[in-house]
C-alpha cells in the first residue's frame, strides 16, 4: 500500500533542528531561579543503613537543602507497581516489591540513592554529596540467579520467605507424554547475559512548581509521559490538570526510560513544591549504568524432544530471570521470553516456567528486544543442538518446523506481556528463511566458498536463524487531528518519541488522508498538556498503535471536511474531493475552498450552530488492538574467525523482515539497522558484569563496550516481505526491536561453524574474544 506520502521514503521533518543543534533536549531547559540536584548513591550492594550524617553537606556554601528518607516523613512511600502481574495466568505467583523513592533502613543494590542534595549548581551539589557520611553494615550480596532461588540464600527482602519474585508456569499439550514418543531428547543450559539500554542521552528531569498558578510543569526524558503525569499527580495529591509533563527531544529511549518511580520522579516534584523553586537533575553516565534499569540476565534449562526426521514433538524450558532488587515492572520481560520461545516453530507440546528472582543488582525492566531476545536465543540454540544431534543441516531443521502461512491466525497458547493469549496474526515464516538463504547464497557458501576457504586455512562460518517479534500490544493510544485556520494540520498524541521518526511517519499518515503536504503537518508527541490519554513507548507499538489512532482521527477529519465543504459549496458530499490544501467540486477545480478557510467556517464565532455539531475540523480517535501484531524474519551472517586471537569479523549480514505495511522504507531500514547494531553489540561487545559482592564492574564506556562503526558489518543487506496485519486498517506491525533479536544466536552458530575443528558449544549470548577463547580451549578438537 503506497500513496502520495504513505509508503514513500519521505525525509524526516525533525532533522533540521537536530542537525543544527537547535533541538531542545532536557538539559537545554533553563528556568530563572533553577536549582540543581545530585544524588548520593550507595557504594554497597547490600547493607543495613546505620546512619546518614548530612550535617556538613547542609552547611556547604551554595547548598539549599539535603534530604534523606528520614526527612521525607509521610511522603516516603514505596513506589507503584507500574505493571501488575498477569491475573489471567492460572496459578501465577508474584511478590511485588516496588522501588522506594530513596533507601530507608537497607540498601539493596549498589547505586541505590540514599540522599539528594539541592544546590545552586550541579558542581556544588556533587561536592556536597561528598560531605555526607554514610555509615552502613555490609551484608553478603545475592548475585547468582540459581543460588538466589535456593532456600538457603541470603534474602534481598527479609520479609519474604525466599528470593522468589515470581513463579509462572504455562503449558500446552503434554510435554512429558511427547518426550516418551521422541526418538531423541536434547537438553542444555544457556545464559543470556546482562546488557544496558545505554541511550546516548542519559535520563533528565526538570520540574517547576508554580505556587501562584498552582500548576506543576515537568520536562522529562521519559517514554511514558502520561503514566508519569498520573503518578506525580497521585503522589502529590494534585488533580491531573495541575501537572503537565512535556517530553522535549529525547536522545534515545531503548526501554529504561519507561520507568515512573525512580528517585528523581518521586523526590524532585515534592522538593520543588517544598522549596517553591524549579529543579533540574541530569543523570550522569555512571548513574545511568548503576541505577537506571537494564535487562536480559536469564539462565535457561531447556529440553527438546524430536523425531528422527527433525520434527519437534515438545519443548521444556525452566528459566531463572533476574529482576534485580525490586520488581516495579512486573513480569513483562520474562513473559516476553515465554512467548518467544514457542512462537515461530510448531511446538505441539510445551512446558515453560519462569523463576523470577530478586538479587542485589539494579532493577531489570525492558531494553530493546525485551525478553524476546532471550527467548529467540535459547530456541535457536536448541534448534542448532537438535540439528547437530540429528546430523541435519541447521536450515533444513528450521524449514521443517517453521509454522506455515496457512496456519494463521494461530493461537499460541501462551499469555504474554499484554495479558492475553498470543495470536500469530499473519506472515510467511518459511518464505522469510528461504529468501534469507537465497540472499546470502547459502548453497554456494556451503559448497564452494567455505570448502575453498578451509583449504586456504581460513575460518569462515555461516549462521542462519529465524525469529518472530511480538509487537504493537495494547492497551491503546489516541490522537487528535486538527486543521488550523492557516490550512496546516496539527496532530497531538500522548505517545512519546525518542528518535524513531514519529514526527515524520505520523505526518505521512495524516498527509495521505487529508491530501496536504507532509511538512504542513505538525506533530506533537508526549505533551500531556496537548493530549492526555496514552500508555507510552514500549513493545514496538508506536507506528501501529498510535499510527492507527492517528489514521482514524484523520479519516474522521476528512469526513468532516467533506460534510462542511459540501454544505458550503452546495453540492452533495460525494461531489467534493481533496485537492492539495483545499476542497473542490469534482470536475470543477475553480469551485473550491481552502482547508484554512473551511476550518474557519467550521468554527463560526456568531450565529446559530446545530446542537450536535462539534466545532472545528477536528477529531479525536483511539485504537486498541485485541492482541499484539507479530512481525517475523530470518537472519544470516558469515563470519571470519581468527582462532588464535578469537577476533571475529562479520563478512556478510542478511536480514529478511516482515513488519506488514511499510509507512516509510527509509526510516524502516534505519530502525532495523539500529536494532541490528544493538544485537551485534549484545553478541560480541556489550556485557554488564557484577562481581560477587554486587559491584558493577562495567559502569563506564571504557568497560562497557558499545559497538562502534568499525565493529559493524560493511553492509546490512535487508530484504522485505510484506504481509499486512489483519488487525488494523493500515496493516501495520511493529519493527523497533526486530533487528536486535537474531544476531546473538546467528553469531554463535556462525562462529561454531567457522571453528569447525573444535567441538565448540557456545552457551552464552554475550561473547567477547576472551570468552570465546575460553570456550574454544574447553572444547575438544575434532
Amino acid at each position, binding site marked *: 500500500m503506497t500513496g502520495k506520502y504513505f509508503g514513500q521514503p519521505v*525525509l524526516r521533518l525533525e*532533522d533540521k533542528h537536530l542537525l*543544527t*543543534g537547535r*533541538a531542545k533536549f532536557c538539559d537545554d531547559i533553563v528556568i530563572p531561579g533553577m536549582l540543581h540536584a545530585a544524588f548520593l548513591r550507595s557504594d554497597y550492594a547490600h547493607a543495613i543503613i546505620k546512619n546518614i550524617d548530612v550535617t556538613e553537606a547542609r552547611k556547604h556554601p551554595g547548598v539549599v537543602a539535603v534530604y534523606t528518607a528520614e526527612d521525607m516523613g509521610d511522603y516516603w512511600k514505596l513506589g507503584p507497581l507500574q505493571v501488575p502481574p498477569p491475573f489471567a495466568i492460572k496459578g501465577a505467583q508474584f511478590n511485588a516489591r516496588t522501588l522506594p523513592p530513596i533507601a530507608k533502613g537497607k540498601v539493596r543494590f549498589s547505586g541505590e540513592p540514599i540522599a539528594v542534595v539541592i544546590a545552586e549548581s550541579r558542581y556544588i551539589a556533587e561536592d556536597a554529596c561528598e560531605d555526607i557520611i554514610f555509615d552502613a553494615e555490609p551484608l553478603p550480596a545475592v548475585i547468582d540467579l540459581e543460588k538466589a532461588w535456593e532456600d538457603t540464600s541470603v534474602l534481598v527482602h527479609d520479609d519474604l520467605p525466599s528470593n522468589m519474585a515470581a513463579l509462572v508456569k504455562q503449558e500446552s499439550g503434554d510435554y512429558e507424554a511427547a518426550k516418551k514418543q521422541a526418538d531423541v531428547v536434547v537438553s542444555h543450559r544457556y545464559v543470556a547475559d546482562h546488557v544496558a539500554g*545505554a*541511550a546516548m542521552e542519559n535520563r533528565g528531569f526538570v520540574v517547576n512548581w508554580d505556587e501562584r498558578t498552582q500548576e506543576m510543569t515537568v520536562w522529562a526524558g521519559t517514554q511514558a509521559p502520561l503514566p508519569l503525569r498520573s503518578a506525580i499527580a497521585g503522589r502529590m495529591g494534585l488533580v491531573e490538570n495541575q501537572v503537565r509533563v512535556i517530553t522535549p527531544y*529525547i536522545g534515545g529511549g531503548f526501554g529504561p526510560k519507561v520507568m515512573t518511580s525512580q528517585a528523581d520522579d518521586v523526590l524532585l516534584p515534592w522538593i520543588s513544591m517544598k522549596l517553591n523553586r524549579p529543579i533540574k537533575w541530569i543523570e550522569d553516565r555512571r548513574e545511568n549504568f548503576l541505577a537506571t534499569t537494564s535487562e536480559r540476565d536469564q539462565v535457561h534449562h531447556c529440553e527438546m524432544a524430536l523425531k528422527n526426521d527433525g520434527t519437534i514433538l515438545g519443548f521444556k524450558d525452566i528459566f531463572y530471570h533476574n529482576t534485580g532488587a525490586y520488581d516495579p515492572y512486573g513480569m513483562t520481560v520474562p513473559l516476553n521470553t515465554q512467548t518467544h520461545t514457542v512462537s515461530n516453530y510448531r511446538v505441539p507440546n510445551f512446558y515453560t516456567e519462569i523463576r523470577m528472582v530478586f538479587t542485589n543488582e539494579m532493577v531489570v525492566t525492558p531494553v530493546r528486544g525485551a525478553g524476546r531476545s532471550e527467548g529467540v536465543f535459547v530456541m535457536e540454540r536448541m534448534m542448532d543442538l537438535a540439528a547437530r544431534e540429528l546430523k541435519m543441516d541447521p536450515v533444513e531443521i528450521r524449514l521443517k518446523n517453521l509454522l506455515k502461512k496457512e496456519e494463521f491466525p494461530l493461537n499460541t497458547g501462551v499469555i504474554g506481556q499484554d495479558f492475553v493469549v498470543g495470536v500469530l496474526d499473519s506472515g510467511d515464516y518459511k518464505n522469510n528463511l528461504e529468501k534469507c538463504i537465497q540472499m546470502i547464497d547459502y548453497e554456494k557458501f556451503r559448497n564452494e566458498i567455505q570448502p575453498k576457504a578451509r583449504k586456504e586455512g581460513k575460518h569462515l562460518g555461516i549462521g542462519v536463524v529465524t525469529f518472530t517479534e511480538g509487537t504493537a500490544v495494547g492497551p491503546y493510544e489516541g490522537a487528535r487531528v486538527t486543521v488550523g485556520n492557516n490550512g496546516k494540520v496539527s496532530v497531538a498524541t500522548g505517545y512519546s518519541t525518542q*528518535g524513531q521518526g514519529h514526527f515524520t511517519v505520523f505526518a505521512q499518515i495524516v498527509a495521505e488522508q487529508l491530501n496536504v503536504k507532509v511538512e504542513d503537518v505538525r506533530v506533537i508527541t508526549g505533551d500531556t498538556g496537548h493530549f492526555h490519554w496514552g500508555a507510552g513507548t514500549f513493545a514496538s507499538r508506536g507506528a501501529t498503535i498510535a499510527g492507527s489512532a492517528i489514521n482514524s482521527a484523520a479519516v474522521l477529519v476528512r469526513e468532516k471536511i467533506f460534510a462542511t465543504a459540501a454544505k458550503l459549496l452546495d453540492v452533495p458530499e460525494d461531489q467534493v474531493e481533496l485537492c492539495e490544501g483545499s476542497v473542490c467540486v469534482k470536475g470543477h477545480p475553480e469551485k473550491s475552498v481552502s482547508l484554512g478557510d473551511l476550518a474557519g467556517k467550521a468554527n463560526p464565532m456568531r450565529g446559530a450552530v446545530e446542537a450536535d455539531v462539534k466545532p472545528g475540523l477536528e477529531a479525536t480517535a483511539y485504537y486498541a488492538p485485541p492482541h499484539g501484531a507479530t512481525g517475523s524474519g530470518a537472519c544470516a551472517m558469515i563470519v571470519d574467525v581468527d582462532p588464535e586471537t578469537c577476533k571475529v569479523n562479520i563478512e556478510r549480514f542478511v536480514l529478511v523482515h516482515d513488519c506488514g505495511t511499510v509507512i516509510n522504507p527509509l526510516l524502516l531500514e534505519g530502525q532495523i539497522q539500529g536494532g541490528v547494531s544493538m544485537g551485534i553489540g549484545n553478541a560480541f561487545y556489550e556485557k554488564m558484569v557484577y562481581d560477587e559482592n554486587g559491584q558493577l564492574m562495567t559502569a563506564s564506556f571504557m568497560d562497557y563496550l558499545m559497538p562502534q562503526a568499525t565493529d559493524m558489518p560493511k553492509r546490512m543487506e535487508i530484504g522485505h516481505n510484506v504481509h499486512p496485519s489483519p488487525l488494523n486498517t493500515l496493516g501495520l506491525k511493529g519493527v523497533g526491536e526486530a*533487528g536486535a533479536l537474531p544476531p546473538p544466536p546467528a553469531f554463535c552458530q556462525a562462529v561454531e561453524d567457522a571453528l569447525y575443528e573444535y567441538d565448540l558449544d557456545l552457551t552464552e549470548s554475550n561473547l567477547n574474544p576472551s570468552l570465546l577463547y575460553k570456550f574454544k580451549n574447553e572444547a575438544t578438537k575434532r
Partner: protein
Amino acid sequence: MAQLIKIKVTVNDTVYEREVEPRLLLSDFIRHELGLFGTHVGCEHGMCGACTILFDGEPVRSCLIFAVQANGHEIKTVESLGTPEHLHPLQEAFNEKHGLQCGFCTPGILMTVVPFLEENPHPSEDEIREAIDGNICRCTGYEKIIESVQAASEKMSSGK
C-alpha cells in the same frame, strides 16, 4: 567559592570574556555559560564523542578540557555550520541519507567529520568508518552515517 579565572575565548567567531572556576569543563562552559546547547554531553569521560567541538580547527572532546584551557583559543561548535533554513551540505546529506535518529550524538559526529572532509575530500568507505569510530551512536548502526558522509563529500567537492 573557588577562585575565578578570567578567560577570553572565541566561539563561532564571537569573542566571549568570562570569569570561570578553574574546574569548569569546557563542555559545561559552552552549554551553560554561553547557552550553545548544540554540543551534547553523553558520558563525561571522553568515550562517546557527543561533545566533540573544533579547538583551533582540531576535533576534541570538550568534556575532557577545562574552560580555562580554552583561554585564547578558537572554538567552533555545531551552531557554526548551517541553520534550519540553510543547512550546511554535510547536514543536508545527513537529512537525505537518514544519518540520524535521536540526533543526540549527531553534533559530535558532524564536528568530527568537518575537519576530516577538509583533510580528505574523497574518502573511501573504510576511511570514513575509521574517522567516526570514536563517536558512539546507539540508534543507526552507523551504515547511514557513512552513506551521509559519502554523499556530503560528493556534494562538497562538486561545490553544490
